[in-house]
């Protein structure tokens, strides 16, 4: 696949699917303020994915609504981390923490992309992601230093989620070209920055970061291999849209 398309699909699908998942916290948050915060982040992520699908459209791909609402799971390139159900708040918070640290660093790097339309989008997006990371850090630090119950839960969520988080950095055949053409710094460099970034925050808590070299990343998402959770999510997302694809809703 063309390296630009390859990169953009991964970025856009991650944002769409995690935005969708975050929106499921409506009515279910541990406090109202968290319903509201997750909704804000979901709206941002939907907006980011729309910007990226518009770049894809400019490169000749279908309209954003068609791309987002009519593909099936094997045609999605999100990492599996984003598609897992929201579970309990500890998991959703840790996923948000691990994902958004990577995402902020990714978009900070993309702000210097040789592909100028993407660099422009990234400069806007990174400013919003800064607040997502601030939100994640605040809660991880608070709950990660609170009651024994909270620390135990957060540690278990961290250990469960990390192998999926490592799947964020799964590469494709286009990786070398993506780096050499200056589109992006590459997944390996991003992962290095991410490890430093999450370690710094976790060091301020009672949580322990396991040795990441001993973990097996959950890969496949970037190549269209997904958990059993993605297709039902997509079916739900397209339920109304597919009732009448010719309609203007």
């Amino acid at each position, binding site marked *: 696949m063309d390296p630009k398309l390859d990169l953009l699909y991964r970025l856009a699908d991650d944002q769409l699917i995690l935005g969708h998942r975050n929106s499921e916290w409506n009515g*279910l948050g541990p406090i109202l303020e*968290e319903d509201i915060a997750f909704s804000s982040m979901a709206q941002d992520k939907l907006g980011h994915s729309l910007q990226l699908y518009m770049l894809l459209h400019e490169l000749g791909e279908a309209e954003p609504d068609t791309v987002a609402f009519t593909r099936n799971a094997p045609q999605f390139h999100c990492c599996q981390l984003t598609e897992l159900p929201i579970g309990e708040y500890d998991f959703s918070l840790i996923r948000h923490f691990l994902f958004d640290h990577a995402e902020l660093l990714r978009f900070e790097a993309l702000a210097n992309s040789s592909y100028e339309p993407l660099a422009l989008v990234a400069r806007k997006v990174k400013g919003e992601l800064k607040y997502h990371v601030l939100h994640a850090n605040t809660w991880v630090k608070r709950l990660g230093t609170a009651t024994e*119950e909270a620390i135990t839960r957060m540690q278990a969520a961290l250990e469960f989620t990390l192998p999926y988080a490592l799947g964020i950095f799964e590469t494709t055949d286009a990786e070398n070209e993506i780096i050499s053409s200056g589109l992006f710094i590459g997944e390996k460099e991003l992962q290095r920055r991410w490890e430093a970034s999450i370690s710094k925050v976790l060091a301020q808590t009672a949580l322990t970061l396991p040795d990441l070299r001993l973990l097996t990343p959950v890969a496949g998402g970037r190549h269209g291999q997904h958990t059993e959770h993605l297709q039902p999510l997509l079916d739900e997302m397209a339920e109304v849209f597919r009732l009448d694809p010719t309609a203007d809703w």
Partner: protein
Amino acid sequence: MYGSASTHDIPTQATTGLENEDPILLAEFEARIARGEKIEPTDWMPQLYRKQLTRMIEQHAHSEIIGSLPEGTWITRAPGFRRKMAQMAKVQDEVGHAQLLYSAAETLGKTREQMLSDLINGKSKYSNVFNYPTPTWADSNVISWLIDAGAIVNQMANAKGSYGPYCRALDRICAEEAFHLKYGHDAVVHMATGTPIQRKMMQEALNRWWPAIMTFFGPSDKMSTHTEILMRWKVKMATNDACRQQFLDMYVPKILEIGLTLPDANLRKNEDGVWEFSEPDWEDFKRVINGDGPCNAERIAVRRAAEENGAWVRRAMQQPKAQYVRPLA
């Protein structure tokens, strides 16, 4: 949105307890309200005023979070980016309204935790319309447009009431509701003037919701004899019937204009300019309010699950030395 337009459980005259209030303070209090002054949290107020306002603001807050559930289930299914993002933002606003309203109610002395506990234990009510199902996207659009429209009629009136924190919360809420109304109207217009499938969906949803919409403002004034003192204290600013008439005046023409019909053969404006309609089934209304509606159990179960699943977070957030401080506005 979603203010419970009718406050349930209004006391009978026998239980007002006014005979126990200091007559001089009571007279000053009533004079202030008559002059159009706002009552603030630290001001003297009769127990009945405190109790009624707490109940009313609390019910309104509950209506916002319970009301966010039927529309919230359509966030994940909203057709297309534009609707998906708008539906999210709209529902998020409603949860934000709950946050504002719980704070306003807290100024009267009841904590948010106690209010939420009363909600899931069935002690407090919320707007009865949310005990009905929203089986399609069109049902969600009907709520966004017409339930929000009804709430605005009610809340614009109550924003001129006597209790400062509630009025200020309502001013902010109404500003956001005005956008919801535009959003809901836009979504309904798209469906009502769209493909045959869309038009059918929208008409069916409107037919399903119309009886509930007609009960939204509460029982007829002739069935409710206790509103006099609440009107004098500017707790209740307009009668149920006045709100219902205003709503019909404003929205029936808009509904008919886009080619939809209303499922009430008796609905018409008479020569005196008063809307006539088939009397809603108030027995059914009472039955549903008291817990026996199609969705009561589900709504409360979702809220209870949220409270229980999130309890560990709230426990963890409590600082051992922190003391509860009642907000002032």
